[in-house]
């Protein structure tokens, strides 16, 4: 394998990793803050993609569509939070798992009812279309853009959580929501905001994936599983962990897909897919609460 193709594959792995990171931030944030395991996170990815598709068709503008997708998903998430998720904070993980599983099933089907089973696509806006020659190989501009946006979103979020008072309150709420309220801060709204923010990030990932992959009912499911894997590897509640694990998984997946079929022949594809989970088991064996354990991250 020549150096330039190796580099290109590194880029691919990195880009994939960053997309996963966008998803993982949401899961880890919602868990870190509200101790909520959210299986409906994949649906937000899907909803983002679909809303963008529908809005693009209606308005003809990618940028408007992007806005619609983000705002729409955030509003929907807020509604879900208020109606369904709120009572779940006080429940155990099992109840949360189940209820959000139900939400996923419902949303998947709702998409079918509204948009049918045909895949929905968004066209890439002209300035992001095509490819650019860099470091000796052509690379799709759009994928570069995804990477950029994900990095930016990640940085903003890390800053928000680590450095701002909003972030402090959010983390304090994670520790003890009653106590935060007892000190005069409204947690309920804070939670709705965080939940919507997480959904917005997932929708961003979905919206950006739209032009690359086919949006179809249930597209969010496999992404969700990978995201959960990433978050487990990184450590629930840890943003740093999510970042490291996303990149690990992105690269492992990309290189696994290239090499495993070469090494294992026909069975290679399946084995390549397995790698990520082997990594997860290995990591959890040595660090039962993920790479970057946060206080209270292990329940």
């Amino acid at each position, binding site marked *: 394998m020549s150096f330039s193709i190796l580099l290109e594959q590194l880029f691919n792995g990195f880009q*994939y990793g960053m997309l996963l990171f966008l998803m993982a931030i949401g899961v880890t944030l919602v868990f870190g803050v509200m101790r909520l395991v959210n299986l409906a996170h994949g649906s937000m990815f899907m909803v983002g993609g679909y809303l963008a598709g529908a809005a693009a068709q209606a308005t003809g503008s990618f940028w408007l569509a992007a806005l619609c997708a983000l705002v729409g998903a955030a509003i929907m998430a807020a509604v879900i939070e208020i109606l369904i998720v709120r009572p779940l904070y006080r429940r155990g993980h099992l109840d949360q798992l189940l209820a959000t599983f139900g939400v996923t099933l419902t949303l998947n089907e709702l998409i079918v009812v509204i948009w049918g089973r045909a895949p929905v696509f968004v066209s*890439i806006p002209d300035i992001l279309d095509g490819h650019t020659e860099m470091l000796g190989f052509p690379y799709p501009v759009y994928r570069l853009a995804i990477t950029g946006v994900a990095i930016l979103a990640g940085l903003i979020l890390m800053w928000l959580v680590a450095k701002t008072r909003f972030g402090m309150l959010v983390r304090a709420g994670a520790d003890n929501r009653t106590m935060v309220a007892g000190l005069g801060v409204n947690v309920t709204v804070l939670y709705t905001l965080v939940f919507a923010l997480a959904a917005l990030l997932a929708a961003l990932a979905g919206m950006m994936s739209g032009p690359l992959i086919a949006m179809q009912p249930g597209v969010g499911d496999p992404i969700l599983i990978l995201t959960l894997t990433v978050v487990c590897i990184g450590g629930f509640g840890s943003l740093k962990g999510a970042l490291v694990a996303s990149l690990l998984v992105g690269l492992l997946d990309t290189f696994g897909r290239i090499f495993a079929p070469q090494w294992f022949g026909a069975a290679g594809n399946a084995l390549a897919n397995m790698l990520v989970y082997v990594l997860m088991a290995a990591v959890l064996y040595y660090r039962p609460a993920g790479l970057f354990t946060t206080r209270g991250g292990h329940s």
Partner: protein
Amino acid sequence: EDKIKLGFIAALSGPLGVLGAEQQRGLDLALEHLNNRLGGREVELYTADSRAVPGVAVQEISKLVDKENVDVITGGTASNEIMAMVKPIEAAGLTLLGTNGGPSPLAGKDCTPNYYSIAFQNDQWSEAMGRYMNEQGIKRAYFIGMDYQAGWDHVGGAERTFKGENLGKIFTPQSQLDFSAELAQIRAAKPEAVFAFYPGSAAVAFVKQYAQSGLDIPLFSSAGVDTLFLPAFDDAAIGSVFSSHYNAGIENEANKQFVADFTKEFGRKPSLYAASQYDAIMLLDKVVAQLPAGEIDRKKLQELIGSTPFTSVRGDFKFNHNHMPIQNIYAQRIEKGEDGKLALNLIGVASENVEDRYAAECPMGK
């Protein structure tokens, strides 16, 4: 009054859901044309969703057989699910008149009286495409496809007939939608053309990513890239060539009528999936008409499918002894129509009146 219980099974959801839905349109239109009667008998229709998952397909077949007690089953979307469905259908003494895909094992050594494919045998499409690539003067090609029965058949067919240098072959898992790593590998091999097999929504993802990846070489495909997906493509897809046993532009009376009615009802031209299913119902109409009144003789029905002449939208049609069609395979290209929309235009016959290469291995009816 005599009735016939018709089972229709197709991938109505999942990544191939679009195809199944199109098959259903073909079915509905045909039944509409026939006033919901097959050979004069009123049709009781039972629909099942196989989701293109073999395990699910088997379960749904069991429902059609055990619960609905259907007389005959038509449909089937993906090759792998068809392979899975055949066994329980055989066990129940029923017949599957397949309307999409023709997996190679069922065309060859595993052929069975209980299964017909009215659409095509998988290799038929792609062998034609391999030849077409030769004609276009392609010397170095890379092959890629989805990792399942149809992918193996299609890619294998194209590889077999392609005469130039075969630079490599990649199969990607059925669930995979991001092909960046594979496209990079392909580009590194510097081929002159790529042959790809991607059915359903993966097709759209693949073609779009192909266009963005900086691979400025022709894409040949025998996949389910079809009229159905045209709205999803950018102009980047213009020029891609696909093979198929059907194109809405085929000239004959039956097709003209079919295309006109379909367009009237659904606002666009029919795709091959609708056409094959439409054909199947038209054939069943003729078959059932020959059955004696009263209880349906399922064995007889099975035999009649292979021997009853009918008017296909493809023009002449004939089943081979292995229950696969002998037919023309056409080349079609994505072009921009006058209305500014993409169209899948017929550009010629890739192979004329071909049977599939597995027929010889099938002991049946020889």
